[in-house]
């Protein structure tokens, strides 16, 4: 066991949005921080759909809007139910925007750079194997037999939280707690993107699609526009996917890209990148029992801080803000002289007061509803069918009620449809 050069106040495990935001905030307040990242560069192991909500980040980084690698501000929001090549779409357009598209590897790289400029040391290519403890108190980390000591450790290791598992702080990750995201990045002319999606320069689109887009697996598809690329991807709930999957998820995604209407929308596009990542889906139900112990704070995906509402996903802002709150906690605990659990418990309090836990609590019911297979197959079929009856007029057209009655025949009852819709509306 080697003892390492230098002495640090804080070790942060992982240079994603959560880890870097913690490191940045701490460094700015004079703490000596080292961030240890397994990837080749900060952000190189991060992957997400494509959109970030801005406000929380502007609070953490004062120069955020001016400096961050923002691609397009999302001004067009679309939600579609798709069956075959038919789409029933709800669209919201506003000249104001609270979210933007970005490449997460670049955004996370920018955050790490801010942390570095503020004085944090970022060490890449190194895996953290374990926490280092003395008398049950976390006092640093272990990596390849080296021990790096610090007063407090911030665990920002991400959704695959092997360190927390090894330490018995969380049980093994279950398939029902996560979803698999797969995504392709397709290069397309800037002008073509703007023409085809009805966008002005620097305006962006966020598009969620449910229906038969995921090869019958519970989940949904998404599309985001960057400046000169489009991200097309899908998220499938892992537990159901494990049981039902017939072919590779990247093949299902390729089927989607090469079928109508996406084959037309993305015509002349060149596939430049693809990737996959697990995403936490169980929110508070997968959070560690305690988000802090003696000498340790858990932030970001590792804490389960991600909210999937079905029509949008929030992860990066939750992660970054939890890192920011962890930093505030450490600053406060430092002023009190130690980093025992009772001093770090203020982290829980800050989280509860913040939008993170309030949002996760408010939308707690949605996670369960989102995975009901009716939502992904039966209802899109019914609604698209109704729309077809209403809009494809040759000589006569039915009334709305008539077409609904006809479309639900053999699938569900009108009453159960209404009840289900109401419960969905209430959960949202």
């Amino acid at each position, binding site marked *: 066991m080697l003892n*390492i050069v230098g002495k640090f106040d804080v070790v942060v495990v992982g240079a994603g949005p959560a880890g870097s935001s913690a490191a940045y905030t701490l460094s700015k307040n004079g703490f000596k921080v080292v961030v*240890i990242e397994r990837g080749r560069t900060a952000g190189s192991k991060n992957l997400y759909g494509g959109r970030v909500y801005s406000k929380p980040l502007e609070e953490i980084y004062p120069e955020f809007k001016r400096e961050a690698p923002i691609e397009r501000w999302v001004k067009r929001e679309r939600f579609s139910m798709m069956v075959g090549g038919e789409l029933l779409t709800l669209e919201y357009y506003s000249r104001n925007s609270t979210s933007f598209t970005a490449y997460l590897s670049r955004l996370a790289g920018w955050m790490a750079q801010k942390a570095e400029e503020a004085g944090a*040391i970022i060490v890449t290519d190194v895996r953290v194997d374990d926490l280092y403890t003395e008398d049950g108190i976390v006092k640093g980390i272990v990596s390849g037999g080296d021990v790096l000591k610090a007063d407090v450790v911030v665990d920002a290791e991400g959704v695959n939280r092997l360190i927390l598992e090894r330490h018995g702080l969380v049980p093994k990750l279950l398939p029902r707690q996560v979803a698999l995201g797969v995504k392709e990045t397709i290069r397309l002319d800037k002008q073509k993107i703007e023409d085809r999606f009805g966008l002005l320069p620097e305006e962006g689109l966020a598009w969620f699609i449910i229906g038969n887009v995921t090869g019958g697996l519970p989940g949904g598809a998404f599309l985001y526009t960057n400046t000169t690329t489009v991200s097309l991807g899908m998220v499938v709930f892992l537990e159901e996917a494990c049981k039902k999957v017939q072919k590779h998820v990247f093949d299902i995604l*390729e089927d989607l890209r090469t079928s109508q209407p996406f084959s037309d929308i993305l015509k002349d596009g060149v596939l430049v990148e693809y990737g996959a990542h697990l995403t936490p889906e169980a929110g508070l139900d997968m959070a560690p029992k305690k988000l802090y112990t003696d000498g340790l704070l858990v932030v970001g995906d590792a804490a389960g801080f991600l909210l999937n509402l079905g029509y949008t996903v929030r992860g990066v802002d939750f992660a970054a803000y939890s890192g920011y709150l962890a930093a505030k906690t450490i600053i406060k605990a430092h002023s009190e002289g130690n980093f025992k659990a009772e001093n770090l418990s203020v982290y829980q309090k800050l989280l509860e007061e913040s939008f993170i836990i309030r949002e996760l609590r408010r939308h707690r019911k949605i996670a369960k509803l989102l995975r009901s297979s009716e939502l992904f197959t039966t209802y899109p079929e019914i609604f698209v069918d109704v729309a077809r009856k209403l809009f494809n007029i040759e000589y006569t057209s039915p009334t709305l009620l008539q077409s609904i009655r006809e479309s639900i025949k053999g699938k569900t009852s009108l009453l159960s449809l209404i009840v289900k819709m109401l419960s969905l509306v209430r959960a949202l």
Partner: protein
Amino acid sequence: MGLNMIVAVKWVPNTQIVNIDPTTGTLIREGIPSIVNPHDLNAVELALRLKEKYGGTVTAISMAPPAARAGLEFIMGMGVDRAILITDKVFAGADTLATSYTLAKAIEKLKPYDLLIFGHETIDSSTAHIGAQVASWLKIPYIYYVIDTEYRDGYIFAKRRLEKKIEIYKLPIPCLIAVAMRSNEPRPIKLEYKLRVKLENPLEVWTNNELQLSRACIGLRGSPTRVEKAVPTPTIPRKKMKYEGQDVKEAVKWLVDKLLEEGLKII
């Protein structure tokens, strides 16, 4: 006594994710993250193993733009003693002749050395020239495709694997060996070393001020190689066909038929 070793490493675009510009036929390097040439990691690993066995020092050198700093920091994270980045605008545009000349001149400044260890080629150009050319400039013996090495009685015993036999060559020091791809498992980066790199910034940077090489022999001017033409090969879209049956003979026939449909010729 130990062995004083010098390992040359190249900073290359990650060709696994690189695209070819369809009009110019050249690699599109913009936005493509670079990596240390994977073959060179085998060279570094062999050097570190030899150091563990016989003592001595390992110095890594690279001629590259300033961004290659990250690559040498990676190598230092593996545990080399010293790293030198040779970087200067006047070295830009070099072919293998100008590159090997520059490297050889830098290596001369590192005398006395016993063993030079190179990766046998790079993934971005695959010429396998550099080791041989550097050895030629330095007038020392060299050997390629080395999988392992011993050091006895002042000689290097270089083992290389051919198709049906293993050859062992005895070379006097100083000499150069070019290491075969995947001949060993490069070690992971060590936290202690990488942290020291970050805290102490030990990377040395040499420009032509240090080397004082004639402009006629370096960079674009010192490079006689010209690429006549580059023709991109067409990308073949996935057909996504799958043989669903069980019978192996049927499957082979099905596959051959499909390939014949694609224009395969059986001679």
